[in-house]
């Protein structure tokens, strides 16, 4: 709503407090409205189903500050805070505030984050209107828009970043470069100790400990990434430099930790005021923890290169296991079934890619896709196309059948069954192997026809077996290529006609 509104020439001019106040009014007003989204979040909490905000169940203001802290704490590093990082952190804090209702923690975290993202207004910027009354007579309304947190699409997925306004107001220009911050804090702590400003020194020492922990975590993350995938970090230039700097820094810090501890310990021994003694004790504890962090960090730094070398050997030089050496059920399927869906997808997709071969990824262009989807349907064909005449003669030859001369020879052999004859005798005649095979199969078919095998009924075997009855003789065929119970073959009725079909007499 920019521009002049409410022009009232006759209205009395409002006297302002002072020119200096007017000059800084805009800046102070902006600071004021920057906190309004959080106030609004608290006011609207009940609508989001979060009850008891004012009764000490959840401190949404504290959670909002924590969200900004988490986001800013990750900015400037390789990986910013993801939605899940922030939501997890907030849910853990909500759990500490009201442990009795674990079902509410995720909703509380969501509400806070959505409030900071201005979810109520589709994640647009927060907009407020400043009334500039520096001109006499009229107020000029100036819109002021800002974000507190916003989402960015990155290689890690959606991450959160804090706006300049949020950082300036809520963090007072906290330096996010951990190593520099650590060193700066050390200087501040030294000065405060020398000035015997112990309360301030305790706060500084606490901050120094946090930054040391952060540095340690960053290094741990890099080493973990190296263990997972040696190519994910730059071990040729970037990481060796960082390790060298970090090692030098840690060596200095360990020496300074001892010096600070000695200094405070000395003050603790000689100080008589109970308040100062208490604060000094806190500082000693904090410095002790920070020293432990630095020692731990030094240990990691010393072993960092070995981590890289081991990972390289394992991932690059190490012989790859061959798939056929795996038991797919035990080594692949069962472990994958036990994984969460996202982890399982990593395995199954890689497996599918290798198993299915090359697939061309399909990409979309907005206009082309919409055009295709909205394309008018094709008009139907006026007439059905004439059916193609199949002028190719059907191939009736059975490639698995017997040659006609073999069938004829077998028929001659089986003709002797009209008077009843053992199969062994028929097989004993001087016939070719193919003829003998066909005779044997026909005898078997006559003995045990398969009523469901329509194809066999029309085959050479079915044709030859028509009219034959086979009964076991009790003897055994042992000679030649055949072996088994002998059968007595008898023809029932007339000789087989040229259009044979064995009726199933079940």
């Amino acid at each position, binding site marked *: *709503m920019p521009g002049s509104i409410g022009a009232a020439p006759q209205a009395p001019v409002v006297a302002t407090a002072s020119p200096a106040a007017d000059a800084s009014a805009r800046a102070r007003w902006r600071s004021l409205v920057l906190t309004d989204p959080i106030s609004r979040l608290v006011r609207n909490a009940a609508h989001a189903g979060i009850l008891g905000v004012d009764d000490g169940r959840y401190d949404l203001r504290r959670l909002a500050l924590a969200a900004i802290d988490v986001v800013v704490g990750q900015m400037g590093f*390789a990986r910013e805070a993801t*939605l*899940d990082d922030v*939501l997890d952190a907030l849910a853990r804090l909500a759990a500490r505030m009201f442990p009795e209702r674990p079902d509410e923690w995720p909703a509380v975290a*969501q509400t806070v*984050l*959505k409030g900071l*993202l201005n*979810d109520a*207004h*589709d*994640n*647009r910027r927060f*907009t407020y209107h400043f009334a500039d009354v520096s001109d006499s007579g009229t107020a000029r309304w100036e819109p002021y828009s800002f*974000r507190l947190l*916003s*989402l*960015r*699409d*990155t*290689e*890690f*997925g*959606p991450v959160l970043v804090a706006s300049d306004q949020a950082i300036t107001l809520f963090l007072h220009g906290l330096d996010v470069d951990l190593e520099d911050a650590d060193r700066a804090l050390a200087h501040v702590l030294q000065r405060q100790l020398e000035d015997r400003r112990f309360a301030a020194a305790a706060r500084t020492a606490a901050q120094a400990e946090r930054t040391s922990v952060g540095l340690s975590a960053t290094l741990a993350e890099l080493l973990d990434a190296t263990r997972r995938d040696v*190519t*994910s*970090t*730059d*071990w040729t230039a*970037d*990481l060796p430099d960082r390790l060298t700097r970090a090692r030098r820094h840690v060596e200095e810090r360990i020496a300074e930790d001892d010096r600070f501890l000695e200094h405070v310990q000395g003050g603790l021994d000689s100080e008589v005021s109970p308040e100062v003694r208490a604060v000094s004790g806190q500082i000693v504890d904090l410095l002790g923890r920070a020293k432990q962090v630095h020692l731990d960090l030094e240990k990691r730094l010393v072993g960092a290169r070995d981590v890289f070398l081991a990972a390289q050997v394992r991932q690059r030089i190490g012989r790859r296991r061959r798939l056929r050496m795996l038991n797919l059920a035990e080594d692949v399927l069962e472990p994958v079934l036990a994984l969460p869906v996202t982890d399982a997808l990593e395995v199954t*997709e890689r497996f599918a890619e290798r198993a299915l071969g090359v697939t*061309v*990824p*399909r*990409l*979309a*262009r*907005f*206009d*082309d*896709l*919409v055009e*295709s*989807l*909205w*394309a*008018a*349907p094709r008009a139907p064909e006026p007439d059905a196309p004439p059916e193609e005449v199949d002028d190719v003669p059907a191939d009736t030859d059975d490639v698995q059948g017997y040659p006609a001369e073999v069938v004829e020879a077998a028929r001659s052999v089986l003709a002797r069954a009209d008077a009843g004859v053992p199969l062994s005798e028929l097989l004993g005649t001087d016939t070719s192997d193919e003829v003998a095979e066909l005779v044997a199969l026909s005898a078997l078919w006559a003995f045990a026809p398969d009523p469901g095998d329509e194809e066999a009924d029309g085959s050479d075997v079915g044709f030859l077996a028509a009219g034959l009855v086979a009964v076991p003789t009790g003897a055994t065929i042992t000679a030649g290529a055949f072996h088994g119970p002998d059968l007595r073959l008898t023809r029932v009725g007339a000789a087989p006609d040229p259009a044979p079909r064995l009726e199933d007499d079940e």
Partner: protein
Amino acid sequence: MTSVAADLTEVRSAAELIQFGLARRVRPVEGSEYRRLLDRYRGELRFKDVVDTMAEGLGLEVLGTPRAGIVLVPEPGGPFATRLGDLRTMDQQEKLVFGLVLVGIAAYAYPNDVDFDDPETRLIEVTAIEEFLRTAVAAADLGDVEDRARAAAEIYADLPALVLTNTGRRARGCTLRAVEEVCAWLVGQGAAREATSLGPDTFHLTDHFRLLVADSAGTAALDALRSVRRDAATGAQA
């Protein structure tokens, strides 16, 4: 494009970068080869030329290089272009509604031209998109839009918002399911990601989608829906 002969190692690197762009799940994390090549593309004009030329030969175009990686789009009819056959089998009505929802999401997320330059990515919810489209097809002036878009709007208005299956899920034939399907397709394209931590139906539109829509010449339907969205935003601000 310069006419200087390209070094073969550059050609290989260019091909690798395109390969990374085609593999949607690869991310240019710090220290990776993908990041190195992406930085080269951003900073070396000669390498950029090689990549662009190679992409052109493959029927692709480089639309941009946001943090999440290089964004490639296909030339129409090229080997990488999405065909209707790549989508699930749909009847005519379903195709029209799918297109309308796609346009609706674009209008909802980017009502103003300035939004295309804003790196802030958008969160959308299935129900919010459905409600917006239902309101928009009633409120928009569709007099000048394409016939098929008008037909899509009429079908959308006729469809129920929600029909449930026996198992309590959204059934085909309702608009919420249609929106859900388009969102799922966008996820498959790398144009959106599920933001389940913020709600079961919440999606995060990526820079990929922003660049796709920014690249669009636009349609009358998109203009009409964006106008409705702008009006709604103005009303909410007032």
